[in-house]
């Protein structure tokens, strides 16, 4: 199957032709081109070593004993029989954790190994190391844990003692869950964060008001490479950890704390990462592997199988959201009230930051004069939730875009027109009070989408074009087409005053007679192509062809997280800045070499080139035996925390905007959906690597579509019902439609090369567009994602009702 895409469009005429930092567009495989990835051949031929391929001949295998209960007190742990098993070298519990017994990205609330309580199904309780993985697994089953099983807290609203309001905002009877002592999951209570945005009139009124309540299920990152690592002890009490992760240095910090070791004693190297999407931002087997390695003095390999992986990383927060939109008769938004509950599960992970995004960007890329948002992140006994591509913005977009369609229907307006009337633009005020100070082409994204030709009408001659595919459920009967639009935005990089930086070391020297650059960062390559971007920047800035990317490790300073669409921006910025310092030194050397002062020099094709005199020297000759090396930390412009009462402040660095148009065929009798086409427009500021940009848009669009249609970790009483790829479904190629893509390049003057983060924005708007298209086809409200066949056929359970959704039962 081919996926037609359009090459990124040329920069629109309005966009500045060059930013101050614009490089000479001449290096081969430089910025703006799409050179082959350095790891491409190995990955395509299956020879790339992923974390799960790590091996040492004398290694032992570590396994994790996990809690079968979502919530229980631990009365006793008896490791005797397990430890006595032949082939077992160590059995460890929380008592063996020498340092801090809890860890966490933002709040250290999660036990390395359960202490006296387990708060989610799958929580690690004990570790076993043995000389064979099967022996380790069988030994783990011999650990006797005496549990006092407790009733789990599974609903985010009632976990806070909030009762469920009806559609008119009236509260039902008192919720008594918190009267149970055990319902208080953490000493500080069940609230992780409550974010408030208050703008304008607290009691606004409007001509037209629409209200809706929406629910988003728990999505999994579903990366294909499971959690894996190899911990190798040194002879002096330290450890080297090879690990598939998203952020080496935040791992290192947490491991050091747990092991009570210094950073120089805990050295991390990035193992091959088979996808991440947020799910590797938290620790998995990191501390466990190191503990076992230090205890046994042998290398320890740990790799989760697929089932364990579902328990071994955080997921996307499920959300329950109540929205009220008020508008004038002409469609102009007057106010939005939103109440968002994000279920963070048992431990905080990155819930505070997810709340920050959902709360501050939860109204979509629209201008809203009067705002009242309450966004809550909550502890429950459900699986812990944290980072996943789109990070809080995904959940809110399903609600606010459904509301925009609902408002358009109430007004009798075209849904795209309503969005255009209310669209943010450069100079608009965001809900945080920030002025949007670079391009915000929401109107153009929508207009370009609308102008794209629609796909041809249903061709029922080929089953593969029909809902159900070769499963042969329809030959055209019951099939209705629908079209839906959605637009969204996402903050790029870390917000709310976080000191967000990356470190780059760039070295220029002559190797084999030719100049060669070496770039060393700790920024994790997780499949997205950062290694290629690092090479491209060095080629462009230093005029060399050969760029060696050093393995990612903690021998260089932090690269920050591979998340928040930030690496090309922040690590790219660091590499560019380091290149600039190297270039300055090289040009100074050139002056010495030429014994004259020239002010119009640049580096190109291995030469130092003067604008007026052409090539004046080769880089190799200028360098000779010298090596120029620069290491620096680079920061994007500072943000600030928002105030706790009104949510105002310069919270976000940059925004990325994307829009989708989905065309679907729905078998309204069976509730089956075929996405016919998923068109996307996105502003990327500058496409550093146009092929990679399109790849990110295709992947992000598909992941967002997956959440709309099928991707859900189903939870019942705190337990995961479908921890497998048999029953946790992600779209296959036969579910993935053609994706016409138009890439805009409106430079952000604050960012390196004018670029905008790319990876997350398309994940946010694609799902809401698919939902809008399904609603258009079947005429139902559809307030829950993933939508299920039984909702589309209107089974009367409220999720697929026509008109106002039925009242949820508390």
């Amino acid at each position, binding site marked *: 199957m081919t996926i037609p895409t359009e090459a990124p469009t040329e920069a629109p005429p309005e966009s500045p032709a060059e930013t101050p930092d614009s490089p000479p567009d001449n290096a081969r495989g430089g910025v703006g081109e799409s050179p082959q990835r350095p790891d491409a051949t190995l990955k395509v031929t299956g020879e790339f070593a992923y974390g799960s391929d790590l091996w040492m001949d004398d290694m032992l295998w570590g396994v994790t004993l996990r809690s079968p209960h979502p919530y229980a007190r631990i009365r006793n742990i008896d490791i005797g029989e397990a430890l006595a098993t032949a082939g077992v070298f160590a059995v460890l519990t929380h008592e063996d954790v020498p340092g801090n017994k809890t860890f966490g990205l933002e709040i250290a609330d999660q036990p390395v190994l359960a202490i006296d309580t387990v708060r989610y199904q799958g929580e690690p309780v004990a570790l076993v190391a043995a000389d064979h993985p099967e022996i380790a697994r069988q030994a783990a089953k011999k650990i006797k844990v005496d549990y006092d099983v407790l009733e789990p807290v599974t609903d985010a609203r009632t976990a806070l003692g909030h009762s469920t309001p009806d559609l008119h905002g009236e509260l039902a009877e008192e919720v008594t869950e918190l009267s149970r002592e055990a319902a208080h999951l953490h000493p500080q209570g069940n609230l992780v964060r409550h974010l408030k945005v208050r703008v304008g009139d607290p009691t606004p009124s409007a001509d037209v008001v629409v209200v809706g309540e929406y629910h988003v299920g728990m999505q999994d990152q579903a990366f294909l490479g499971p959690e894996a690592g190899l911990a190798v002890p040194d002879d002096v009490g330290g450890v080297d950890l090879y690990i598939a992760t998203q952020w080496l240095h935040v791992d290192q910090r947490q491991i050091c704390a747990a092991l009570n070791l210094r950073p120089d004693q805990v050295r991390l190297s990035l193992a091959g990462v088979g996808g991440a999407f947020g799910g590797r931002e938290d620790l998995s087997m990191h501390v466990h592997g190191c503990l076992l390695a230090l205890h046994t003095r042998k290398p320890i390999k740990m790799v989760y199988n697929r089932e364990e992986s579902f328990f071994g990383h955080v997921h996307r927060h499920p959300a329950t959201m109540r929205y009220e939109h008020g508008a004038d008769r002409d469609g102009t938004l007057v106010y939005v009230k939103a109440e968002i509950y994000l279920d963070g599960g048992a431990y905080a992970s990155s819930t505070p930051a997810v709340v920050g995004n959902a709360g501050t960007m939860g109204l979509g890329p629209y201008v809203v004069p009067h705002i009242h948002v309450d966004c809550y992140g909550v502890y429950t006994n459900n699986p812990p939730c944290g980072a996943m591509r789109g990070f809080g913005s995904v959940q809110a977009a399903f609600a606010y875009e459904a509301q925009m369609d609902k408002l358009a229907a109430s007004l009798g307006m075209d849904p795209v027109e309503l969005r255009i009337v209310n669209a943010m633009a450069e100079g608009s005020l965001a809900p945080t009070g920030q002025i949007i100070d670079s391009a915000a082409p929401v109107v153009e994204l929508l207009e370009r989408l609308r102008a794209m030709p629609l796909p041809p009408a249903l061709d029922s001659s080929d089953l593969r074009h029909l*809902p159900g595919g070769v499963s042969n459920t329809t*030959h055209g009967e019951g099939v209705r087409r629908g079209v839906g639009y959605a637009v969204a935005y996402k903050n790029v990089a870390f917000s709310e005053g976080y000191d967000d930086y990356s470190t780059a070391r760039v070295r220029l020297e002559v190797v084999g007679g030719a100049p060669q650059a070496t770039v060393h960062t700790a920024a994790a390559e997780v499949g997205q192509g950062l290694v290629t971007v690092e090479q491209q920047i060095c080629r462009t800035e230093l005029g060399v062809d050969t760029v060696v990317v050093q393995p990612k490790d903690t021998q260089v300073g932090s690269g920050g997280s591979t998340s928040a669409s930030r690496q090309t921006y922040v690590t790219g910025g660091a590499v560019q800045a380091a290149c600039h310092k190297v270039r300055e030194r090289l040009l100074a050397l050139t002056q010495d070499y030429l014994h004259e002062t020239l002010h119009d020099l640049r580096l190109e094709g291995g030469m130092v080139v003067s604008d007026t005199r052409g090539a004046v020297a080769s880089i190799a000759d200028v360098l000779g035996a010298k090596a120029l090396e620069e290491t620096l930390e680079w920061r994007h412009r500072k943000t600030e925390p928002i105030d706790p009462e009104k949510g105002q402040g310069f919270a976000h660095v940059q925004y990325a905007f994307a829009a989708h148009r989905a065309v679907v065929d729905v078998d309204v009798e*069976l509730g089956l959906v075929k996405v016919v086409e998923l068109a996307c427009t996105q502003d990327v500021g500058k496409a550093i690597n146009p092929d990679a940009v399109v790849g990110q848009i295709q992947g992000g669009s598909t992941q967002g579509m997956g959440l709309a249609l099928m991707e859900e970790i189903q939870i019942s009483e705190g337990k995961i019902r479908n921890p497998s790829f048999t029953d946790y*479904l992600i779209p*296959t190629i*036969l579910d993935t439609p053609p994706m016409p893509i138009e890439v805009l390049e409106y430079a952000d003057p604050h960012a390196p090369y004018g670029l905008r983060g790319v990876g997350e924005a398309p994940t946010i708007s694609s799902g809401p567009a698919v939902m809008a298209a399904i609603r258009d086809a079947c005429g139902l409200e559809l307030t829950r994602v993933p939508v*299920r066949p*039984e909702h589309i056929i209107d*089974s009367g359970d409220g999720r697929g009702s026509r008109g106002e959704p039925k009242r949820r039962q508390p």
Partner: protein
Amino acid sequence: MEFLAPTTLADALAAKAEHPDAMPILGGTDVMVELNFDRHRPPVLLDLTRVPELAEWSRDDRRVRLGAGVSYTRVIDELGHVLPGLAMASRTVGSPQIRNRGTVGGNLGAASPAGDSHPPLLAGGAEVELASLAGTRTVPIDEFYAGVKKHVGRPDELITAVYVDVPTGPQQFSKIGTRNAMVISVSAFSLALHPDRRRVGTGIGSAAPTPRRAADAETFIAGALDDDGLWESKGALPDALAREFGERVQTAASPIDDVRGTAAYRLHSLAVMARRTLAWAWSDYQGGTNA
């Protein structure tokens, strides 16, 4: 765990007689998953992939003898025109890789209510061949399933083949999944017209503890077609008939709510699939296209 890999059928039967608790394995698309999840720890694995007799199929005028080791891919490629119902179901099994490994014999051995090959075997008419050192017997397909993932084969027996009737009329298969490929069925339905016997065969999947026929619906529709002389006239199928057929198919099922779907949706979808597949098959019978 012991691993036995006989290279003749005689050796395989001897091995099964000696190790009645041995778990036979062909493509491994079920067995290996179960092992991987540690759901079963059979003391012996009996690998049948090296037994040439199992990898063959043959046919006469009346039926096809399909060896237990014939893959879904081969059913599609080699028997697609002979056994259309089974081939349609085979196309919905997993991915190309799984269809290359998985077998109808393995599907019968697992006897899962969600197995894709069961409904067309039930609808089209089939007999399962069970062999042991004591001899060979055949069991009609609708007497083969004995409970959730259970069949009537004895511990000393192996499933060696399935005899599938060569169709005398159109066949259809329809399966609900929540994505458009590589999905275990939420519900499935197969239908076969047997104009020679003036019968209609049915098979229901994923909507009861075992795959099963909708006997009452079969009787109803065969009678109605007879009463209206439609077998001879090949006249239009009244919509009301198709609807009632769908409703009767629905009542034959006893589905549960599970992670893949609700019982209510399974019932609803069965009625729709039964109605639609009957209409398509009837259209074929009339000689038109089944659009």
